[in-house]
């Protein structure tokens, strides 16, 4: 017998708990850096990301004027990393949004009505049978490249896991006494799902979003690397990697920095997500570990 829901004041306490978790704090700081870099990229970047400097290709990092060096066309790596991070976050955010907007209602419906569960869950199983990247590559190949299509492909690929999470939460919450009490008070399914089950499932949804986010960022890099995501000359961390690969024997640097950026974004979300899950989970009440 456990009511694992998280009431509002507990959420405040969860934030305090989060602040005390050193790994969570590291994650939060990394995230802050990444988000600031992405949001303010147009102002932070010293050059437009696609501006070429044919006179100065393959500059080493710490060259005057090019803090992180330049690539084969003399484009400033720092500017491109900043803009690439911005693109990655856009794709990540859009695909999380898509996964939430489609996955949450379907999960609620599947968890609440046994008959619809059969349909939704079999479709979910079907989608899960494809590895998510294969699915995303397939969709991107059908729809063509571009930031929007990449986000849609990655969002669709992440819908099944979101459905599963929300469905499981709904199944659990459906049997709680407070839902029973609401039913006995003649509350309809819309009220029960919207006012009782969804608010209690929010923690799980937030945590799942922090899992989908880095997966989508990584997915965008992979799609762009393969030429199925963001199209050149628009900057993307994946495109930068694929460009750098051709000149790997000439210089390493144009590939190192976008790689670091991808790693930092994913690490930030993963660490933060882990800490968030611990903080929102009432079973880990004790301080420290």
């Amino acid at each position, binding site marked *: 017998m456990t*009511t694992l829901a998280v009431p*509002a004041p507990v959420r405040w306490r969860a934030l305090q708990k989060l602040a005390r978790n050193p790994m969570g704090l590291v994650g939060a700081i990394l995230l802050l850096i990444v988000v600031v870099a992405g949001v303010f990229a147009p102002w932070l970047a010293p050059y437009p990301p696609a501006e070429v400097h044919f006179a100065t290709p393959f500059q080493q990092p710490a060259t005057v004027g090019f803090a992180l060096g330049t690539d084969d066309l003399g484009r400033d790596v720092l500017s491109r990393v900043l803009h690439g991070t911005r693109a990655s976050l856009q794709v990540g955010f859009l695909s999380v949004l898509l996964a939430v907007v489609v996955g949450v209602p379907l999960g609620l419906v599947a968890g609440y009505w046994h008959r619809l569960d059969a349909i939704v869950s079999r479709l979910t199983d079907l989608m899960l049978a494809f590895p998510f990247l294969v699915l995303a590559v397939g969709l991107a190949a059908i729809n063509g490249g571009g930031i929007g299509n990449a986000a849609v492909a990655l969002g669709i690929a992440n819908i099944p896991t979101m459905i599963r999470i929300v469905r499981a939460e709904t199944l659990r919450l459906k049997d709680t006494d407070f839902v029973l*009490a609401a039913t*006995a*008070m003649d509350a309809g399914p819309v009220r029960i799902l919207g006012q009782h089950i969804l608010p*209690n499932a929010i923690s799980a949804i937030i945590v799942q979003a922090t899992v989908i986010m880095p997966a989508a960022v990584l997915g965008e890099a992979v799609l762009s690397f393969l030429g199925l995501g963001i199209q050149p000359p628009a900057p993307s961390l994946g495109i930068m990697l694929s460009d750098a690969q051709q000149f790997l024997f000439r210089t390493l640097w144009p590939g190192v920095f976008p790689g670091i950026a991808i790693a930092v974004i994913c690490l930030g979300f993963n660490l933060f997500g882990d800490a968030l899950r611990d903080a929102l989970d009432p079973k880990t009440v004790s301080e420290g570990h």
Partner: protein
Amino acid sequence: MDTPLLEIVDLHVAFGGTEVVHGVSLQVQPGERVAVVGESGSGKSTTAHAIMGLLPGNGRVTSGRILLRGEDVTHADEARLLRLRGREVGLVPQDPMSNLNPVTRIGKQVAETLVVHGLAHRRDAAARAIEILAEAGLPEPARRARQYPHEFSGGMRQRALIAIALACRPQLLVADEPTSALDVTVQQQILDRLEALTHELGTALLLVTHDLGLAADRADRVVVMSEGRVVETGPTAEVLTKPQHEYTQRLVAAAPSLSAARAVAPAVATEPKPPVLALEGVSKDYRIRGRGGVLRAVDDVSFEVRRGRTTAIVGESGSGKTTVTRMVLGLVPVTGGTIRLDGDDIVGMRGARMRAARRAMQPVFQDPYGSLDPTFSVERLIGEPLRIFKVGDKAGRAGRVRELLDHVALPATVAQRYPNELSGGQRQRVAIARALALDPQLVVCDEAVSALDVIVQDQILRLLRTLQDDLGLSYLFVSHDLAVVREIAHDIVVMREGRAVEQGATEQVLDQPSAEYTRQLLDAVPGRAAAERPLFSGG
């Protein structure tokens, strides 16, 4: 005087920075039975666990001493504690469901204890385990020893745990609420067995319980704890008849008992008013998954709830009493029979008529922690039925919530709080306020007070009675506790295995029970032996 078997001197225990046990001292002599009585949060279990070095999480003994036969084991190392646990001090834990390994056969779990403590070789441990299980009163021990925990009932599991605790013949047995998860008749059998065994083996017993009646029946000496302190200690009879401390006096007064003067006025026999609720031949079948069989959970049950009165359904787990309330509330479909609310059959009713029926009856559930949505403020919780039935405007609803809070004796400031900021009793008051929001005729209370501490339980029962007198409410009150039922009900229905085995006016059923099962139930209620000595007087 001899060295006591167990002596706790000025024990302080803290979890993190919060001290929860503030200087507890107690003694247990060899062969003595001592009960530690207190409400939840009184520190009784923490004290018991400290003896065995089993404080959970970040709990630690901050000062004081625990002496076992004169040896200081307060800060003993793990090796010493391992020898101590089981060998010198046995533990019967509270929850028989989670304390047995679900993937290991029962016999093996008992044998393991013997082998670990070097009391048997692997070869003969199995045979010895069967003997020990037989001692604990397990029928067919040889066959049962080969079974897994899920094949055991709660009572049988507790017997197995007692067998494990006593396997190494410890001198002290710590029983932490050993029967609070069990039905009352099973509880009696288990405690009888425990008493006989400890007597036979000369084992001292430290019984931790919230149930004063149980302590009265089973212990030589009682230690009453409240908020981490021992408030009173002495021979059982003395503490219960002449409680010195104010807290003990309140505890004794609040304990529901079968002999106390009843607060409910006896029902007047001639009442022309039609009943609020009438069940006639109600049955409920559940299909058993896979096998195609049918389980009859409720079988041909008929009873009435009279207007402004309380009808109680009494029974043990699996008796179908909760299923009856769910059918009344329209939460599970009815297989057969009629349920009349105010004369209208509500079986199979839907749409607007069901809505009207639901408005007239409101539930209060057992667990006040589970029945209130933790993301809602108290104001929103109590106002929810008003919003569902679109009663009044926003300001009107807020006013009604204040009025309801006043009805259940909660301050208006509670309105902005969340359930997790309230105590168990306050939450149950909120649940009652919510049930009253629509002025229902019938309130269905499913074990509404059984999760509460004795004093709080008494307060809630009083509140329910007051509300009944003031508002003319009718209650359908489900409980496993005959003593509680006696305090509130006018009529009683005794259920067993889906059937109503006896029903009638409270006095008649409790004082002259006609069914054998009712008599068994009555005999099993703890505190009865004490009551006959007359310990509980007044009420």
